[in-house]
């Protein structure tokens, strides 16, 4: 299948599913039916060609699958009456979708897949399948688990949504604030998994990064006045812009300070900078906007030495006040070390020692190692690098940390 066909299917998947779910209710059955239609398309279109109206084609196939499914369900439950009613309904793809703005469907789907009754892992899996149109096998591959592990996870997630009594409607506006927070977090998780590939040999999985950006972009299009969605999209773009410089020719991790900044993607960065500049001037600041603003400060520095560290430290302080979190403190310690010297940064790290959330995390000794190295305490830095290398679950990160320890003799 060509990349264009794949893009087309991803673009169409949520629209077809949205229209179907709104028409027939049954989100779980509709989602299965659309998956089958997508698989049929990916098998038939490469040889038979893309139909003139690909969306109508998908709707028709999905509806047929849904009707088949409901018929067999109904037969099983001996409820012929419902079958007749549903099967008798004229199948006119695309008609229902004209009554409700498509944007609402995409948003409803996002709220549904990011339902608060699900675990983050299930929210991520379901979002990738229902909104990204990714087949279960690909979702499984993205998270390095077999399909047999991912399939029950997805069907269980759908059952759970059903049990929670969710219908295919937008939640009441009063719930949006909390629900959108979950949606943004799920999109962030997808991006992060793609960017930092939490375990395995590969440092990043660009497919997930692209998918997270695509989904966040469409959410931003639907909700242009949500400052945090704009902030999240800007954060993703500004982080992704650094990707080409983040790995060396040997696949080794290159830290921000040592990256060749001419390799950063200028156009991706530009879009991110424009977004965050506008968002910060328009909306009250939120955690994603602040993180994007920090990424923007890095982006605007011609070299690591020319970075406006006082501004970064100030932004981290606001972020810390807004959403206290040991990872934010950890990052602030780096900025503080750059403005007030490594010892000030190390003092701040000491406040995290007792934090249970950091007890097994490799980032704490990794940052400590950097600051100790800055302070000239080579022996302690080497030990901290080694401890961090022992704790990480990522091979490239382990190579990097071991290499740093080795360089110190």
């Amino acid at each position, binding site marked *: 299948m060509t990349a264009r066909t794949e893009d087309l299917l991803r673009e169409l998947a949520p629209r077809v599913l949205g229209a179907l779910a709104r028409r027939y209710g049954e989100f779980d059955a509709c989602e299965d039916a659309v998956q089958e239609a997508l698989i049929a398309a990916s098998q038939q279109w490469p040889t038979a060609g893309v139909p003139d109206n690909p969306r109508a084609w998908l709707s028709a196939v999905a509806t047929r699958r849904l009707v088949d499914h409901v018929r067999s369900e109904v037969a099983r439950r001996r409820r012929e009456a419902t079958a007749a009613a549903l099967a008798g309904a004229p199948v006119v793809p695309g008609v229902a979708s004209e009554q409700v703005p498509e944007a609402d469907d995409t948003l409803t789907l996002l709220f549904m897949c990011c339902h608060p009754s699900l675990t983050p892992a299930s929210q991520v899996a379901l979002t990738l399948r229902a909104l990204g149109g990714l087949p279960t096998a690909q979702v499984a591959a993205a998270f*390095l*688990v*077999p*399909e047999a*592990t991912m399939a029950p996870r997805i069907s269980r997630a759908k059952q759970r949504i059903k049990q929670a009594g969710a219908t295919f409607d937008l939640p009441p506006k009063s719930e949006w604030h909390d629900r959108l927070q979950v949606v943004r977090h799920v999109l962030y998780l997808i991006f992060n998994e793609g960017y930092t590939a939490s375990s395995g040999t590969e440092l990043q999985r660009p497919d997930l990064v692209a998918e997270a950006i695509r989904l966040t972009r469409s959410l931003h299009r639907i909700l242009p006045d949500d400052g945090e969605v704009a902030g999240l999209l800007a954060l993703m773009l500004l982080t992704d812009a650094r990707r080409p410089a983040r790995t060396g020719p040997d696949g080794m991790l290159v830290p921000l300070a040592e990256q060749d900044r001419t390799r950063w993607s200028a156009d991706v960065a530009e879009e991110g900078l424009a977004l965050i500049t506008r968002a910060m001037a328009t909306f009250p600041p939120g955690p994603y906007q602040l993180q994007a603003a920090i990424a923007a400060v890095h982006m605007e520095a011609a070299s690591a030495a020319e970075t406006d560290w006082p501004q970064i430290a100030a932004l981290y302080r606001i972020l810390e006040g807004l959403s206290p979190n040991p990872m934010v403190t950890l990052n602030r310690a780096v900025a503080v070390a750059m403005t007030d010297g490594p010892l000030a940064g190390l003092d701040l790290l000491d406040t995290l020692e007792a934090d249970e959330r950091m007890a*097994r995390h490799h980032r704490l000794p990794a940052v400590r190692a950097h600051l100790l190295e800055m302070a000239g305490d080579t022996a302690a830095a080497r030990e901290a690098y080694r401890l961090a290398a022992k704790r990480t679950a990522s091979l490239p990160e*382990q190579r990097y940390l071991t290499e740093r320890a080795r360089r110190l003799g």
Partner: protein
Amino acid sequence: MKFLLLLHNNPAVLNALTDDQRTAIMNGHGTFIKTIQESGELIVTQALADPSNSAVVRVRDGVPAVTDGPYLEAKEFLGGYYLVECADRDRALELAAMIPDAAVDGLGVEVRPVMFSSGMEM
């Protein structure tokens, strides 16, 4: 996160079990497998044959030498494992506690994070 739940066996402990206890353990594994299959946490599980069937291969100067028997002469040996993927370490510990072996006096389940996976049909 992926974790390997290692089942270390001790023949002396296993031999001392009654038939009823043994059956309960077997059934317990069945229930456990079903539970983590349905939750989408099970990746794979294998039980290993008795270590008396083992052979150890060592290649020295390009020449393989094979000796019969396990790698380590020990009271305990690896009897099998579960490879799972779950939300976090706490959940992995919770899963380990659901394995019947964990409740047998003289046995325990080791929980170890996985760093790198490859070769599975994924």
